[in-house]
């Protein structure tokens, strides 16, 4: 039976009344028009549906909406600050790491979490960290480049910050 569920999506609190076992993916897309999160397989194999649930990359297609209640949910729409892109978004743009682009929201969120865990990853760590995400255009090389670029940008920004302090 439908029940009210409180969701914290991209900094806003939204209450939906819905079946608790509905996939978070569908509630985000259909009820809240958060459509940057994509359906790809419904089996957690492609990660186009990735959101950050309390900071952890999570396949929203396999996550019942009730399990997201009270947690922070970040989708691709929640990364940029106004017109200013998140550094990982900027890096994907600079590396032209997209063909059809359908996998990109999930890629960017996975990469963001990876870089928070491992700020200066080797290529092997990037591959291991991103391997759950599929790109059928097979633009993997540019995506690895983008993640590396984002890591370097972050390092540079931190170095600048250290100099200032």
């Amino acid at each position, binding site marked *: 039976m439908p029940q009210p569920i409180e969701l914290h999506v991209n900094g806003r609190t939204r209450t939906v009344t*819905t*079946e608790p076992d*509905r*996939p978070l993916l*569908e509630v985000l897309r*259909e*009820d809240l*028009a958060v*459509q*940057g*999160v*994509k*359906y*790809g*397989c*419904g*089996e957690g*194999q*492609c990660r*186009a549906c990735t959101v950050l649930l309390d900071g952890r990359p999570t396949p929203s297609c396999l996550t019942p909406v009730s399990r997201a209640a009270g947690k922070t949910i970040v*989708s*691709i*729409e929640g*990364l*940029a600050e106004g017109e200013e*892109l998140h550094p990982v*978004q*900027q890096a*994907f*743009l600079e590396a*032209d790491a*997209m*063909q*059809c*682009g*359908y*996998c*990109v*929201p999930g890629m*960017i969120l996975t990469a963001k979490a990876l870089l928070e865990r491992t700020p200066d990853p080797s290529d092997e760590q*990037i*591959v*291991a960290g*991103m*391997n759950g*995400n*599929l*790109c*059928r*255009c*097979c*633009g*993997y*090389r*540019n*995506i*690895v480049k983008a993640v590396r670029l984002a890591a370097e940008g972050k390092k540079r920004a931190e170095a600048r910050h250290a100099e200032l302090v």
Partner: protein
Amino acid sequence: MPSSFEFQEDLFEPERRELLEGPPYRFELDRREWAALVGAGLWITAAGKTAYGQSGAAPELAAGIRLHLGQDGTITVLTGKVDVGQGSRGQIRQAAAEELRVSPEAVRVRLADTDVTPNDGSTAGSRTTPSTVPVVRRAAARAREMLLGAAAQAWGTEPSRLTVRDGAVTEPGGERRMSYADLARSPGAADVRDEGAPRQPPLTPVEQWRTLGRPEGKADGRAIVTGRHEYPSDIRRPGMLYGAVLRAPSYGARLLSVDLAPAKALGAAAVHDGELAGCAAETSYQARKALAAMAATARWEESPQPSSDELTEHLRRTAQREGSGRSGPRREERGSLEQGFAAAEKTVSASYSIPYIQHAPMEPRAAVAEWADGKLTVWTGTQRPFGVREQLMEAFRLPAGKARVIVPDTGGGFGGKHTGEAAIEAARLAKAVGKPVSLRWTRQEELAWAYFRPAGVWDVRAGLAGGKIVAWDFACFNAGTAGMESPYAAPHARTQYFPCDSPLREGSYRGIAATGNNFARETFVDELAEAAGADPLAFRLDNLSDERLRNVLTAAAEAFGWERRRTGRGVGAGIAGGVEKGSYVAACVELAVEGEAIRIRRLVAAFECGAIQNPLNLRAQVEGALIQGLGGALLEEVRFAGGRLLNARLADYPVPRFADAPPMEVVLLDRPDLPSAGAGETPIIAVAPAIANAYQAATGVRARALPVRAKASS
């Protein structure tokens, strides 16, 4: 099973598919109607026949606007092509910007809307580059010439003394300036028929390119990285419901009866009309529940179906050896095979096979359908917008003008989205419920019910004398004719194609049959080199006269270090090349066999498609095709039995991931002296044979079937 949709034309070579007849009528544009759609200003219409270069596409003059110059300064290029990730939007923009002398950002591109854009046929066959880009450039060059002419007339000078820069002409030594917006606002501005023009406007020669030839990033990159980019599955309409369609338990099964009441009891609207049964509800969750309730009552009549284990035998057994016409067998012969084999010192023969594989684009088929005042509008991801409109008109018996197909940029195609299943299903559901319906196929539906890359079997035989191929006998079963013709010189040759009964519904793919035909040919050529006691590269070069193919082979071999390649202890290197659709590719692979695992240690490819228009996108296309090709070579295989797909889940149908992408080097050979050919497909064709050849070098065992699997015993 017989296919219910018409798409087989894409299996065949262009000349089989070419529609030679022009339209029986040509109608004038209705200015008011078009002004409402594209805005006031100046329109340039292009001659229909030059734009498509694709089969099944009747040129439609009523939708012939190619370029629109708005009075507000906007510049819009219109084409019926779609962007499924290959970058047609950016390419069209870049090409128009070149001729207009503006920055690419100043050009808007309107793609694939059957009510608005010209019918440029399918987005397939690598035709956008050779067919659509030149037409767009001509229309843009016409606009530039008009601007020059208008300015020259206004200022009492010769057009040849003026140049367009940044979208405007400036008076030499003067103050006056005239832009495209000024031209569009001028009283004489009206629609201009490109075809009626006295002469073709000059296109900018390659050596003068300022915009083409430069790396340009994705046209909608910012929308993509922010998640704002709208795909077919993202379209929302007021009052829209979500649909679900009942699928058969097996291929060929007939629906005898189904009770809609259980679905209706759950609050869904349900419909059963002929072969289609489905429902629509407020959410896809509710639609799924309602569908499951319906499905439990469905009665089916199933029929025996072949299994993938007996596929090779089934194709051979059902081969159609007699007949003629579009769907019949094909045979081409030169010289005398008998004479050729009689002169041979050695004769080699072998058979090859490939399975069905799926395109598995990231975005499964999706459509939103809406009926208003008897007119149907469908937003869907398809590579044949005008073909799908025809399908809709036929399915719903609609007259022309009562069906419109709009294709938002789509999440992948790879030749797999030529048909309109989702569009028709969504439209039927929408008609039943009287509201717009969004139908998104599940991954499982996409894997099981979308059409497949055809499976194939080959019998190849050749005769050698003095290190040369003197006789060549190549027979392909089922896969298709693309890429059948051998680039190797042989005085006596026979090439045959036999259509077969296909157990699965099949259709186009990236490179279509050239994937299989090149696998068979290039693997066999390695067997010939072995029989001749020659190096695989040297043997190829000795038997090839096509300079461009020789160049890519040499370039790939050099970058790879073919002369210094490693062999032995489970490590081997292989080479293969090919030409398809006017572009050339060669690949070198080094792999290691470790138990049952095959690890690609290095992949080097050289690619040449004439003058390079956008090196950034070209590299992405080549790299993507190479890695996608690794999937078909090593991982992908559709398995089925009793009419049921045995691996219709991504977990069971592995495709290449990050970890599967090997260290790679791509050499792009630029040929500014040659016209640009398409590049989205050809790079895929050399990967599988290069891997098969490397596998042989590593293990001494020939891999004659795809995917290549390591035998633990070898």
